[in-house]
């Protein structure tokens, strides 16, 4: 069985999509926010791999189409943003304030929490780029001397978390403006949060794309500065 899967080109994509469909179905039936399609899909695939003793590398290779499409899909986030151009022009100050304050609060909170938990320098800088999109985060982590594998894990957990609890957190903070919702999701949980924002609405999705791009770019400058603090 194990050998079979390691030679199949399509099982990775099919298993991933089946997991996602199960998640969509559960979400629709129960409307329970923990039944997040992405989360369910990830758990489903993990369970599947463990059950049949399939190596992660074999799955990764046969699901590589999905990862391959990530760059063109991220490029396409410019489309909804362009469609909300008027809103962007009108609210650019609020948007910039929001994105910058989010990024700074993120870096400060990581610094303070790292002090609290007595993390060493490497562990601290590893977590600094956790709120930005994986491709930028890996580069930043490498540059400031972090452990790239753990940075990627932190980025993925941050994204899934934002995708799963985003709506609850926004409700808790009384954030109702679609623009503010989008900015918050993008700033806190990058592209994975943005795919949630896309589900909520067009404005939310567009603003989240913008927010993830600006947060990512500003973190390239800010993270090395924060790295010196500890």
């Amino acid at each position: 069985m194990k050998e079979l899967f390691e030679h199949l080109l399509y099982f990775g994509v099919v298993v991933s999509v089946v997991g996602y469909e199960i998640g969509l179905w559960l979400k629709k039936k129960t409307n329970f926010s923990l039944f997040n399609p992405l989360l369910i899909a990830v758990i489903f695939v993990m369970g599947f791999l463990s059950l049949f003793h399939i190596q992660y590398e074999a799955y990764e290779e046969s699901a590589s189409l999905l990862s391959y499409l990530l760059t063109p899909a991220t490029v396409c986030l410019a489309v909804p943003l362009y469609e909300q151009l008027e809103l962007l022009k009108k609210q650019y100050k609020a948007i910039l304030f929001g994105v910058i304050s989010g990024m700074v609060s993120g870096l400060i909170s990581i610094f303070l929490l790292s002090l609290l938990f007595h993390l060493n320098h490497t562990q601290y800088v590893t977590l600094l780029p956790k709120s930005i999109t994986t491709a930028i985060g890996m580069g930043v982590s490498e540059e400031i001397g972090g452990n790239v594998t753990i940075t990627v894990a932190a980025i993925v957990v941050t994204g899934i978390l934002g995708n799963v609890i985003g709506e609850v957190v926004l409700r808790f903070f009384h954030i109702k403006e679609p623009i503010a919702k989008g900015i918050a999701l993008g700033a806190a949980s990058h592209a994975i949060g943005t795919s949630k924002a896309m589900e909520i609405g067009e404005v939310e999705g567009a603003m989240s794309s913008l927010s993830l791009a600006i947060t990512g770019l500003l973190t390239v400058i800010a993270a090395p500065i924060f790295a010196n603090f500890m």
Partner: protein
Amino acid sequence: MLEPLFFAFFGRKAPKVKIIKEAFIILAISLVGEILKSLIPLPIPASIYGFVILFVGLYTHMIPLEKVKTTADFLIEIMPLMFIPAAVGLLVSGKALTEILLPFILIVCVSTIIVMGTSGAVTQWSMKGAKAKEESDNEGAI
């Protein structure tokens, strides 16, 4: 470029190849992003260069919206699927985490909530400020 060939062979308009053209534009921009990434020594990924190029292209009307819209909407719709392989990768990288698992989880959760709350609240608050100012300016004009 291929269309005249079609005319020559079939003597009628070429069949619709909308998606091929759209995918070509998007993939070509991704490629340019990749080239920029390899030329510029910054930790900025190809996708962000591409995002900026497509946005500028749309803004300047060099790339008409309807030349990318269908494929872009499709790719964005299926985007959550693209994160599954990386997240399943936690199965492997999770082993590197055991040493700092508890602080790791707490820091990630707390700071994600803080960032979301702060950026959302500040944006909403700044928008209200701008709105109030606009209204008082209008009153002044009247």
